[in-house]
């Protein structure tokens, strides 16, 4: 892809750095015990989150997964709010009761981060159909993994979206693994975009390391949906640098695989272009990284100051009204 570089690229670069450094910090806080339980990091997948979210317009919504920190931050959640949620603090986006798998912010169009594989897809279809019914010009996106394409809700959601020509964009973050299982051990094909076939709408393979490619393909799909032409399935080819979750050392990877992917790191790819183009020099990039790092560190420091909620405070989260 060779879109003319636009001002967005600098913002995207910064956001991708923010996501990367946020995730690294999460890992560190985990080691220190400041974050407990489990967490599913997305280093390596930043271009997917940033490029695709960048295609959304006000009023659009999306659902994502337990591996949703990238989308949450791309949608503008403050790192401090996200850290606080991961720490179970009352200033977290969900008051600390959700945790790492549920970074949700309805005010930013982030209507769900789901810990159940495949559950977010029908929810996005529902939002899309609601837009149709109320004649609102909005679109719903749904992010999910390659492994999620094997569960029934994937099929059910795509089928309903097709039958109803719903304004929804399905985004597979194909990072080649579902937990410890390589794609081809659970899925009978390499190119998941082909799974759009029986629904009669387009399936598109996208280079998930190239933020421009991601943004371009998603924008096309979003605008197609907005024009009333129905859903698209986008397959983002990408990779997660870390194991599935905290507990996973990712020993199952073939030798050299990680290196092949880090050699096309999405942040470095964009950084190289920004440097080549003269927009942001390597030095300025380093300065930006330091600045973001300082923000991230400060955000974590502030988050940890937030009190834990009390059970009583959280009672109002259960029933509305």
């Amino acid at each position: 892809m060779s879109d003319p570089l636009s001002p967005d690229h600098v913002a995207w670069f910064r956001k991708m750095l923010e996501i990367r450094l946020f995730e690294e910090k999460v890992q560190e806080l985990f080691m220190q015990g400041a974050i407990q339980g489990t967490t599913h990091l997305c280093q390596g997948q930043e271009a997917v989150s940033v490029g695709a979210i960048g295609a959304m317009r006000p009023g659009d919504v999306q659902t994502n997964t337990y591996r949703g920190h990238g989308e949450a931050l791309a949608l503008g959640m403050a790192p401090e709010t996200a850290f606080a949620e991961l720490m179970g603090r009352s200033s977290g986006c969900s008051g600390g009761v959700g945790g790492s798998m549920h970074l949700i912010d309805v005010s930013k169009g982030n209507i769900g981060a789901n810990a159940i594989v495949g559950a977010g897809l029908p929810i996005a279809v529902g939002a899309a159909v609601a837009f149709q019914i109320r004649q609102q010009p909005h679109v719903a996106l749904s992010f999910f993994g390659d492994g999620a394409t094997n569960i029934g809700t994937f099929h059910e959601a795509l089928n309903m979206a097709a039958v109803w020509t719903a304004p929804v964009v399905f985004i597979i973050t194909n990072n080649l693994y579902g937990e410890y299982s390589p794609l081809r051990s659970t899925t009978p094909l390499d190119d998941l975009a082909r799974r759009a076939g029986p629904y009669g709408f387009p399936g598109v393979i996208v280079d998930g390391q190239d933020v421009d490619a991601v943004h371009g393909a998603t924008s096309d799909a979003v605008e197609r949906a907005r024009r009333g032409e129905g859903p698209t399935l986008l397959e983002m080819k990408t990779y997660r640098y870390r194991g599935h979750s905290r507990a996973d050392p990712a020993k199952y990877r073939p030798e050299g695989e990680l290196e092949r992917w880090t050699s096309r790191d999405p942040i470095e790819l964009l950084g190289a272009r920004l440097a080549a183009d003269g927009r942001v020099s390597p030095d300025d990039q380093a300065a930006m990284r330091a600045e973001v790092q300082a923000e991230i560190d400060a955000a974590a420091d502030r988050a940890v100051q937030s009190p834990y909620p009390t059970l009583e405070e959280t009672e109002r989260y259960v029933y509305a009204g």
Partner: protein
Amino acid sequence: MSTLAEPLAAPSEPTTVELTYREAINAALEDEMAADEAVVLMGEDVSADGGVFKTNHGLVEQFGPSRVRNTPICENGFMGVALGMSLTGLRPVVEIMFADFLPTAGDAIVNQLPKYRYMSGGQFSVPVTVRSISGALGRFGTQHSATGESWFMSLPGLRVVTASSPGAAYELLRSAIHDDNPVIFHEHKALYGRKGTVRRGAIADLGKAAVLREGSDVTIVATLLMVERALKAADQLAADGISTEVIDLRWIRPLDLATIAASVSKTGRLVVSEEQVHAGGWGATIISELTMAGQSWHAAPRAVSLPADLPIPYSPPLENEIIPSVERIAAAARTALGR
């Protein structure tokens, strides 16, 4: 006139009409859809000739196929769709053709609907009503005869309600649709033809059981089809000079323990009559809660339930036999009274 029942003119003052249970549900749907554009009805064949159980007559003609929406066969998927609709301002009513298919939508019902608001820290409300067509005696066999009324009673964030008569069905379905939380609404397929008085325009209180008949000797708590059987049992008992209080439990979640406790404090005797296995159900929960609260009994409480170890059989005489009968309910009350 394509609808079964006249639409609601002035919702402020209830007017009394005679409707069947089926018509009462139709009227509640019609009144809610007319009053609020956000209400949509969805499910398999909901708009086809009034729906499979003919509860939806005239709705697609009145509100159009977008708001009365046929779905493909995929309960978990369209339940998730309803959730997504609710997050963006609609108030979907989902029809589940047989209660037995609720587990097909198991993830949406257990992990999504009740928890969605909570795990967002209260950012959403989830006004989804699930209409579950429940109950046996249709000779539908073991995979199409469940009530499932207690299956989800342990889930915080959810409400569960049952309708035993046309009047209750109308008011409770409206109450369910009005509530900003997910509600599973159980209708019993053997009741669709029953006639009764409906206060058109009224709406039921949330979480309140209904004392249908007052009495002083024994309390019978029942739901769905068991309510009319309990009332008939009370008639039989009255002939023997036994004064029976009959309570239509209505809400399984939240349970109206106060109303039941007040009744049992008076009668000292309790029979729960349930079209379900006793284990893990509302009957057991009520007896446990009262006992834990220190209830003193004149006689041990009793349950008239489905057999613990038998699925619902197809064979008509066998199906008849296992569903609690008027006689068995009356007999349980008599035993409690030592007669």
